[in-house]
């Protein structure tokens, strides 16, 4: 029997949880159809997490592509279908991959598996994003350099801890209703071992009494704990957090059954959510808003 799961019309880090709630009831090798025919919008988080979902399934799931032409076109130019073909059985009319340079996305979905991928991603952002971030988001050059640093560190998190490749995507949006400003969003997702198992692999440090996905996320993001004995490790995400705080941004990370967020004043998200449906690996989202007019 194939279980059909409807992908919400608008897919972001919150609505993706609806998908996971349904997936939780299906055995890992059970047949699944992700029905995105009526989906009209997806954030970088939504798109990268969908790929991760496909990657994590033992039995290849079927994916029904959106019917809306604009959505289809945007997802195609975001490279979604190019990589989705590797992890899903695609149904519906799927456009051919757009030629390089045609993408409207700041950084289309890009696989990250090794150090050289991070060089490519950071270089791409520097080439394409500087003008957009300076003009549209009114970020000063220092913030743009910091943005590339954060991008580098969150991508490295995949290489260092996931145990397998993941994806990254960067896009700007106009959050007129929610924030009244534009934002730039980085989303990174992998189907690897996740924060808890990664930190558990450290043999030099006993685990605390309370140890679960939430505790692991807190240790890694808030306290800069790393699985490595090297005292220099763990600075990447901690440094990213410092940058994000300085530019009034938001950082959220989901791993296993928990999600932690560094929440700025402009957002009403909760700092910690536990007992979520299990999802492998780690999903990190960084949101930097346009600089407010003074």
């Amino acid at each position: 029997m194939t279980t059909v799961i409807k992908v919400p019309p608008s897919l972001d880090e919150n609505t993706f949880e609806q998908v996971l709630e349904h997936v939780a009831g299906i055995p890992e090798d059970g047949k699944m159809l992700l029905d995105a025919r009526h989906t009209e919008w997806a954030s970088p988080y939504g798109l990268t997490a969908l790929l991760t979902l496909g990657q994590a399934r033992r039995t290849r799931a079927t994916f029904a592509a959106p019917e809306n032409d604009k959505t289809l076109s945007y997802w195609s130019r975001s490279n979604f279908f190019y990589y989705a073909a590797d992890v899903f059985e695609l149904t519906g009319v799927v456009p051919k991959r757009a030629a390089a340079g045609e993408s409207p996305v700041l950084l289309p979905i890009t696989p990250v598996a090794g150090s050289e991928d991070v060089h490519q991603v950071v270089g791409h952002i520097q080439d394409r994003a500087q003008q957009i971030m300076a003009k549209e988001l009114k970020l000063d050059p220092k913030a743009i350099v910091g943005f590339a640093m954060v991008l580098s560190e969150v991508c490295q998190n995949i290489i260092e801890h996931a145990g397998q490749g993941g994806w990254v995507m960067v896009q700007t949006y106009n959050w007129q209703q929610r924030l009244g400003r534009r934002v730039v969003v980085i989303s990174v997702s992998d189907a690897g071992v996740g924060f808890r198992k990664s930190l558990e692999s450290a043999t030099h440090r006993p685990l605390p009494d309370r140890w679960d996905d939430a505790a692991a996320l807190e240790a890694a993001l808030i306290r800069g704990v790393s699985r490595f004995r090297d005292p220099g490790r763990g600075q990447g995400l901690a440094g990213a957090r410092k940058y994000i705080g300085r530019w009034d941004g938001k950082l959220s990370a989901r791993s296993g059954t928990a999600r932690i967020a560094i929440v700025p004043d402009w957002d009403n998200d909760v700092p910690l959510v536990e007992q979520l449906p299990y999802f492998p690996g780690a999903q990190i989202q960084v949101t930097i808003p346009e600089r407010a007019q003074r």
Partner: protein
Amino acid sequence: MTNHIDLGTVLRRTLSANLYSNLVTRPTGAAVRGQIESLLADTLATGRALTVIDFSHVQMIDFSCADEIIAKLLMSHGAQGLESYFVFRGMTEDHWDAIETVLERHGLALVVERDTGVEIVGVLTTQERSAWNMLKARGKVALADFPPDTDEESDLVRDALEGLFRRRLIMRANDMYVPVGELA
């Protein structure tokens, strides 16, 4: 002996077909540090070495790379007791965020060369900073100017100068302390 190491050149030599001038990722940092160490190996065998690490052709450096290159270079040379001094040139605001973070993490300081002359940045005690400012203003300070057990203030200055020397932030030559960059 003075070495000049252009990090941009080392980066391009380390990464084949690298079109960018970004010091990012830990493996890249480790490879670049390895290149620096091998460049320094010969000169260190002859005794004291002063190395100018030039950031002029580096667009950005991330936290991981700063840790691998700067922190580990300073810590490894310090732990080996080598008389190895570093001056960092061409460091801009764009590099500073990552570098400051790793210096704070490890309690390190380094000498930077600016248009206005050499400065020390990072984690320093108040006494070390005062001693550095005095040394920079005077150009050189004789050990004999601060004989041990003379008075408390003299002892503090002497200890601070000795501490800066042990951290290879200043040099000692012929019973004189001198700022590192002054001999570059």
